């Protein structure tokens, strides 16, 4: 009898199941011509406020809808519904992030016509959502001026997984001595070349640049081959290499 331990190669990606589902979702959205944008941030950064404004402004020209994740309440879904576009709540219970399977299930239960843009508001959390690809084309990470300029340095993984940053509550910037230059530099440090927008959902400041960026992304997607369109998102999930 040998006493040498035997090494059995496994090589199994722990998050593979989510990545497979996310890829299928991305393919489905592409086939339907729907662009998908997700929002991640801490609780209280203003995802819902920004999304309510965004939905209200975009619905004039585009077919838009939103999925919103929340641990327990329907408060955010009710707020978003005021925009007059279709909104569906995903209640996660005790789970602190959305997963591709939850998005898939929500879509199955939801009879909704063709969409140009689907927004997914994640649960407020700067840690776990970073690891879960939802099949989105664009991930926005939000940071409010009241949270401090060093948020990107404290949570580099989520900033690194995003495609654009939005600094919210800019109407309060002076009151809290927000240092815009430092905040933007910190974003660039953890995710070089990522576009960043300064907005106030309350006053409307900066919203036009941000909306232009979203619609440009939508139009670019319609003209990009599937392979290229999905490459960044798969790099984000860490499975393509």
């Amino acid at each position: 009898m040998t006493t040498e331990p035997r090494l059995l190669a496994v090589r199994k990606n722990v998050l593979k199941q989510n990545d497979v589902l996310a890829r299928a979702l991305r393919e489905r959205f592409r086939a339907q011509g729907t662009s998908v944008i997700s929002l991640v941030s801490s609780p209280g950064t203003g995802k819902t406020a920004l999304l309510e404004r965004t939905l209200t402004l975009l619905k004039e020209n585009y077919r838009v809808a939103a999925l919103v994740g929340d641990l327990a309440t329907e408060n955010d879904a009710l707020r978003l519904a005021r925009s007059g576009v279709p909104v569906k709540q995903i209640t996660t219970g005790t789970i602190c992030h959305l997963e591709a399977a939850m998005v898939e299930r929500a879509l199955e239960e939801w009879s909704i016509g063709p969409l140009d843009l689907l927004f997914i508001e994640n649960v407020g959390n700067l840690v776990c959502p970073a690891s879960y690809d939802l099949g989105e084309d664009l991930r926005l990470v939000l940071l409010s001026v009241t949270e401090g300029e060093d948020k990107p340095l404290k949570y580099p993984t989520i900033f690194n997984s995003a495609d654009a940053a939005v600094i919210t509550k800019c109407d309060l910037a002076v009151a809290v001595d927000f240092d815009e230059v430092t905040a933007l530099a910190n974003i660039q440090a953890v995710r070089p070349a990522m576009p960043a927008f300064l907005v106030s959902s309350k006053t409307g400041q900066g919203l036009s640049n941000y909306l232009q960026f979203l619609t440009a992304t939508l139009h670019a997607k319609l003209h990009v081959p599937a392979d290229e369109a999905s490459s960044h998102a798969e790099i984000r999930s860490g499975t393509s290499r």
Partner: protein
Amino acid sequence: MKEALLFSYEVACDGTLLEGSRLVVTDVPIEVFCPVCKVPRTLKSMQWFCCPECGTATSEILHGKELVITALELKQ
């Protein structure tokens, strides 16, 4: 992440065939591709996505996001 894995592994193994087994986690350093040096470089800090040699900013991550079960070590 590592601490959470080690903790939950032990709990999950209790009362199963794997009880008493050990989870060995190997950290994978963050490796990026430097567009100027044209070679992979290991990051010194997660807060600074720049080539450690020439200082060029880069977002192209080659390694460091892995979460993979690589092997099982068994006693015969």
